[in-house]
């Protein structure tokens, strides 16, 4: 049975408030989830204030400004700052997205920032993604073509027609930020077994690859009441994807392929 409330050690408490030292023309308040593994305290919400005139436009810019100038202990993942690495995934203003793609002006009042929902927290905004990565590895996200290679010369070029290549559109663009997976209530309650939208989107990506020889085996491997069919088309994944992809539709495609092909 799913537990809808937070365990005792995860209940959020009030934290510190850092106010602007000098008057600002365009102040913005941020409330950020903090948890330090080195003390035994519960997570807290720290309140920060920045001057938007002296800061870049994105939420990630604000986080970096806070880390650089106000509180160097603030911890978060970031790398490319342009939405291609998927590191800075977090829950901003109630919706999972990439901090580098979320404009501060999109949020009217105070910006509330939490780690990706229903994940173990390593520190502050850094969630433990090891389970999700394990699940990704379980669908074998690499090209398998042993059968094809046996028939032909194994040194052959792996050719793909433009039409077959098109079948991967909407799938290869995924940066594995897990915004979708952690927005899915089904994954919250059944994350141990259910693979979640991000991993299933990857499954669809390899199932759809014309150069891969294991389409049927791949479909068989995910044809499982827990791994795949915990998807009830809630559509939160599609609502959340910062890259504008549609995991729910790809999962529907997988279900359809299983019915028609296996």
């Amino acid at each position, binding site marked *: 049975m799913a537990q*809808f409330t*937070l*365990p005792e*050690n*995860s209940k*959020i408490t009030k934290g510190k408030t850092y106010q602007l030292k000098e008057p600002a023309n365009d102040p913005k308040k941020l409330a950020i*989830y903090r*948890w330090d*593994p080195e003390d*035994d305290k*519960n*997570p807290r919400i720290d309140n920060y204030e920045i001057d938007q005139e002296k800061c870049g436009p994105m939420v990630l810019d604000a986080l970096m400004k806070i880390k650089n100038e106000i509180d160097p202990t603030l911890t978060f993942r970031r790398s490319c700052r342009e939405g291609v690495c998927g590191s800075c995934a977090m*829950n901003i*203003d*109630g*919706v999972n997205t990439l901090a580098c793609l979320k404009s501060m002006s999109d949020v009217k009042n105070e910006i*509330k920032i*939490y*780690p*990706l*929902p*229903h*994940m*173990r*927290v*390593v520190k502050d905004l850094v*969630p*433990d993604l090891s389970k999700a990565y394990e699940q990704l590895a379980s669908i074998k996200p690499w090209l398998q073509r042993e059968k094809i290679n046996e028939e032909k010369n194994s040194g052959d070029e792996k050719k793909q027609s433009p039409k077959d290549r098109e079948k991967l559109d909407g799938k290869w663009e995924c940066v594995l930020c897990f915004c979708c997976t952690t*927005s899915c*209530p089904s994954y*919250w309650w059944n994350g141990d077994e259910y693979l979640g939208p991000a991993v299933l989107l990857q499954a669809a990506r390899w199932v759809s690859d014309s150069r891969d020889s294991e389409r049927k085996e791949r479909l068989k491997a995910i044809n499982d009441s827990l791994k795949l069919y915990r998807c*009830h*088309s*809630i*559509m*939160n994944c*599609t*609502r*959340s994807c910062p890259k504008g992809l*549609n995991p*729910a*539709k790809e999962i*529907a*495609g997988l*279900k*359809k392929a299983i019915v028609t092909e296996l």
Partner: protein
Amino acid sequence: MKKMTDNRPLSPHLSIHKRVLTAVFSIFHRISGIGLSVGALLISIWFFLISFGPEFYIYFEILSKSILFKLVLMIWTVGIFYHLFNGCRKLYWSFGIGMELSQVYKSGYAVICLTLISSLVVWYLA
């Protein structure tokens, strides 16, 4: 030995995630489904009261005239229509049709409109 990872808190979920419409439609589909099963039981008891003979008919009368029962019946009709129309929407999704986000929102609003119109028509006729 206690590992550093043992004490990791669970990040907040239901309490902080925005009530996005996609999830709201889904949870109401479930709630209406459960409500309909319980309601079907109640309604069959209501009907059984007629067949059990004259001494039970009086309870049928009392129940049928009570405002509370009428209210439950009204909510039940809303549940039926919501579950029916949203079920159709999910059926289309099974074929991968209408799953773009804009379509999902439009069909969602359509479900609400159809539910309200159908319920009003039924109440008007009843």
